[in-house]
């Protein structure tokens, strides 16, 4: 079948290392198209977070090539990065909320950085908090929230701009079943609207009931995984 959907992420023979250390990722070939939904599994420390960081332009490639939204960004210049990153929503494992800003201001931050007008920012942020059932916490500050609430706020911040690519690092690790399910439905809703989603988790079992394609990071390389495993050489789409 000839799939004509826009290619959002393409990694070709990519490798990544921290400083002058050994490669933590190598020979990574990955293609994510608009509207695709993948779950990235692997043991703790296997390199899932590093792969997300590489795609989000947080870490440079040691070798290989990275294309984002159809352009080669392997050696992208500093001033071009903000524009690319505004099209990516990222949920960090440690949430990374700004404690001096209210819940509302934390969620609204990407919209403000993108200079979306105030009215639209307030409307989108309000809607997002309502969807997650957090609108009563809008004026609270992160330190008074539970871990689960913080994780939901971090997720809301990542998706409030309706990004073309969503990278989520253990997004449901602190959520109970109901809240986790609610967040997954939010991701699926975004995905239906065309967002490419890549979720990294080491609790693959919890996501088994969702019909997502699975990838596994093992020993620094990327493999198909899950019930419908592909051949290693196959490009994953």
């Amino acid at each position, binding site marked *: 079948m000839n799939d004509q959907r826009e290619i959002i992420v393409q990694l070709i023979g990519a490798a990544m290392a921290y400083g002058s250390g050994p490669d933590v990722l190598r020979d990574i070939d990955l293609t994510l198209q608009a509207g695709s939904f993948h779950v990235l599994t692997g043991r703790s420390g296997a390199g899932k977070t590093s792969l997300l960081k590489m795609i989000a332009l*947080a870490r440079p490639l040691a070798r290989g090539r990275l294309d984002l939204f159809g352009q080669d960004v392997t050696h992208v210049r500093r001033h071009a990065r903000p524009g690319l990153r505004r099209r990516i929503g990222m949920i*960090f494992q440690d949430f990374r909320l*700004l404690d*001096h*800003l209210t819940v509302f201001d934390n969620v609204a931050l990407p919209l403000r950085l993108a200079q979306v007008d105030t009215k639209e920012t307030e409307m989108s942020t309000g809607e997002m908090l309502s969807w997650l059932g957090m609108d009563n916490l809008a004026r609270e500050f992160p330190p008074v929230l539970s871990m689960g609430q913080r994780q939901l706020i971090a997720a809301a911040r990542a998706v409030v701009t309706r990004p073309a690519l969503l990278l989520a690092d253990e997004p449901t690790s602190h959520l109970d079943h109901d809240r986790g399910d609610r967040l997954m439905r939010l991701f699926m809703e975004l995905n239906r609207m065309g967002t490419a989603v890549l979720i990294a988790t080491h609790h693959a079992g919890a996501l088994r009931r969702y019909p997502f394609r699975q990838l596994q990071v093992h020993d620094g390389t990327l493999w198909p995984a899950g019930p419908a495993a592909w051949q290693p050489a196959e490009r994953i789409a």
Partner: protein
Amino acid sequence: MKRSDVVIPLDRTAAGRMMTWSIAVLVYLAVLALAVAGAAHQLLGAAAENANVAIVSLPPPLDASKAEGDLAAVTALLLADPDIVRVDRIPAAEVSDLLGQPDGTTLPLPSLLELRFRPALEPDFTRVTGLVRSVVPDAVVEDAGKAGGARIDVAESLRLLGTAAAIMFLAAAIALVVAVIRSAVRHQDETVDLLRMLGASDRFLARQFQRHVLHVALRGGLIGFAAAAVTIVVLLDAGGLLELPGLASLTAMPTPWILLAAVPLVMVLLLTAIGRVTAGLALRHLD
């Protein structure tokens, strides 16, 4: 500034909090130093005006009726001299005050004349003395500018030192801002990294630091200038310095205050620009 606009909480670090007061102290010292330099400059200006002035003292003659005649003859002789542009008689009441004569006493007073030579002329006091003594042999001619010789030396040193100190305090403020901003960028590396991941440009990030410096420098500048202004007024008043020539009208005039107020203003503008540039460079290294 709205709370939501402060994405990087710079006032939460000890260095950030201390910066207001450090800048206030430096502005305070710079304003005082410049005030000293300005006052010294004013004194030197007054001394320069007196440089071409001489005082002719005619002792009271034994025959009091001759006093007016001697005075008129000396005045006419001096006015005829091409080097002298003006001759003024100092009123008797002023002479009495100068000599500290108690009211009601009638002791004979010398007659005093103030001579003003042509500007930029090196007056020949020996020749003028000879001229005056041809009429009144006991007359004395004094160089008015010479009287303040030691004071002029001190004023020149103070003007130099005051200006140098003001420049030094300005340089210290710049060094402080550079150090604090560099340290703040390093300290806030996680926030900076997060904001970059959310799509913030380095220009936006540098503007956060710049705005912080602007607010801190404005607050510090205002506090420092207000404290310095109070100090200057109190010192001038308490020390009786207002009696010095050239300083008498200084505090009442707007120009010196405007010039002094320019110190914090220039500091605020300079520090804000330095803050922006420093943040931009530090952010580049943080990548």
